[in-house]
């Protein structure tokens, strides 16, 4: 077979897969809307304000509720907001569990 | 018919090491004839061939292909004239390494947009004509000297050129293969093609198929062979 045919075929297969990904996303979204709706209902019922992504500190667990002077206030999940933060080691007892 | 009028080619013009490789050559080369440019190394044979073959432009003078002036054509047209009119056989064969003999033969026709199947058919027919069809899928670097040259000849013929230009075609061939090459030149002639060869190999310029031998020296024509 011609190499260009192989090339176009591989591009076509990949493109079809990409379209498949889009289709999957659209389809899955319809299905998962229900689950998301349930989660939203839970949020409403428990009056939650934040995502449970980072549980290590107050200002990372509830970035929207943190004090004004907490680190990371303007960009709560930034790598380090205060320059000193990058100089301080991990508090003892937290790491290396 | 190819006509050269007062052709001069100066390399590195205007610089201290400027060099006049072709110095005032006027010639009329007959169509459908085999012409050999003969002369010592450095006499300007290769340079003259490249001028005739539209590979380079002369510093001065004009070249006429039939009744068409080609010296003043823009590059694009020049390339087009070149690939439709000329087939080149180089001293080093200059096959592209890493791809098959067949692909090498097809290479000059790729940009012309010919349909692949018909191009492949023509290329294989040419390889068959020169007895190297069994080697069609061998990589260029695996071909023997004779096979490589035949492949290079097939490549020169793929666009069915009217004029075939060969620069020192026998330099890397033994006597037997050189004789075979001249037989092939005889076939070109029988097919009404114009052949121009630069060579200082007596096997070439002494061959009976040659119609005319032009002797060059220091960029000038020493003997026009007529």
């Amino acid at each position, binding site marked *: 077979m011609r190499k260009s045919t192989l090339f176009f075929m591989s*591009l076509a297969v990949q493109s079809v897969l990409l379209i498949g990904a889009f289709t999957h996303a659209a389809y899955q979204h319809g299905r998962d809307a229900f689950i998301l709706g349930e989660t939203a209902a839970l949020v409403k019922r428990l009056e939650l304000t934040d995502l449970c992504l980072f549980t290590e500190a107050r200002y990372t667990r509830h970035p929207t509720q943190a004090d004004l002077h907490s680190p990371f206030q303007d960009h709560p999940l*930034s790598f380090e907001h205060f320059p000193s933060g990058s100089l301080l080691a991990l508090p003892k007892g937290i790491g290396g569990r | 018919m190819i006509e050269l009028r007062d052709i001069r080619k100066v390399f590195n013009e205007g610089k201290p090491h400027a060099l006049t490789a072709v110095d005032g050559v006027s010639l009329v080369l007959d169509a459908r004839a085999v012409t050999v440019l003969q002369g010592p190394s450095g006499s300007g044979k290769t340079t003259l061939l490249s001028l005739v073959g539209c590979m380079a432009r002369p510093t001065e003078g004009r070249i006429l292909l039939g009744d068409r002036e080609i010296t003043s054509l823009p590059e694009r047209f020049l390339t087009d004239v070149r690939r439709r009119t000329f087939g080149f056989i180089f001293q080093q064969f200059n096959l592209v390494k890493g791809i098959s003999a067949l692909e090498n033969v097809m290479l000059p026709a790729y940009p012309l947009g010919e349909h692949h199947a018909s191009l492949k058919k023509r290329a294989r027919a040419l390889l068959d004509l020169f007895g190297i069809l069994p080697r069609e899928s061998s990589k260029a670097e695996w071909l023997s000297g004779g096979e490589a040259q035949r492949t290079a000849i097939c490549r020169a013929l793929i666009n069915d050129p009217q004029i075939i230009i060969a620069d020192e075609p026998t330099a890397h061939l033994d006597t037997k293969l050189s004789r075979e090459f001249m037989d092939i030149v005889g076939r070109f002639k029988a097919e009404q093609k114009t052949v121009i060869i630069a060579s200082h190999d007596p096997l070439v310029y002494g061959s009976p198929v040659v119609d005319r031998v032009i002797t060059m020296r220091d960029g000038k024509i020493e003997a026009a062979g007529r």
Partner: protein
Amino acid sequence: MGNWFERQRNIIDFTLSSLVRRKGKNLALLLVYALLVFLLASVMFFTHALRREASFVLQGAPEIVVQRMSAGRHELIPARYLGMIKGIRGVSGVRGRLWGYYFDPFSGANYTLMVPEAFSHGSGDVIIGQGIARTRLVGPGDVLSFQRYDGTPAILTVREVLPSASELVSSDLIVLSENDFRRFFGMAPGLYTDIVLTVRNAKEVATVAGKVQKLLPDTRPILKSEILRTYDTIFDWRSGIIVVILSSAVLAFIIFAWDKASGLSAEERKEIGILKAIGWETSDVLLMKFWEGAAVSLTAFLAGVLLAYVHVFFTPVMLFEPVLKGWSTLYPSFKLVPFINPYQVATLFFLTVVPYTVATIVPSWRAATIDPDSVMRS
């Protein structure tokens, strides 16, 4: 002059043949390239999906949260504030929220304790999030023992585990009754963590918040729109940083491609000379170079994007686990709802394929304009 499409295909044939010649090198290039696209696309898909999910789920968040501030810190809010806020026009409901953090020395994790408006179980019972169930290896009917503020043990029975589909918001939750909460932290009855309001007319939220602050200057109202915006910027910023970092990798890669294309080896130069000598035009050589760049980058691009999609939406996002875990012991395990849009894919395309292809063609220009007669001398 021939067929345009055939010309492209013929030249692609040759381009691929010549790519195959340096199989190892080009394959390595392709892999590195695909990896780069994969990383970029993973970050983009992940943060976009997370952001979208956050903005959907957090639609249920309270419209206004009122915090009391004291000496620059978040303070408990007295119950009498409830009555004062209730009197503001436009407020349809107020409720004191009780919630706090508990560091569990046993697992080394932080939990969020929370009292709901209506708790469906009794005293001594709790509902926990999946994350806690996982780290403490407990399920309904099991007992969790914690230490109260005064050192006395609190024995709590797990009654329910919140659905794993909601882990993104509930992984570390312990939902318990108000009595248990107050006893746990020794919090006097007249105090709450903060106050949440509902507003009659959604358009009046900002006005109401302004009135709250005027009436109670030591409070800070936090609006739902601010919550949503915070999450928007968090992910924008986070993914922005990662994209910037990765972009320098992309840049390095493109410089490498440029260097590779401009530093053509003698062999490649000779090859271009041969092509020119046998009748290829400069534009044909450039077309070949274009396809060389396009073949590598299109393949790597599509492969990288597809792998990233699978990685982000089908597997437990291995790559981001360390980032998500951070220092925490308890971290959510969640499956994102797939979300990609053509805009993201186009951005990735312009970030990777276009510069790479340009970087392979432009430097080839000089090699492509090589004189065709160069091969006749050597």
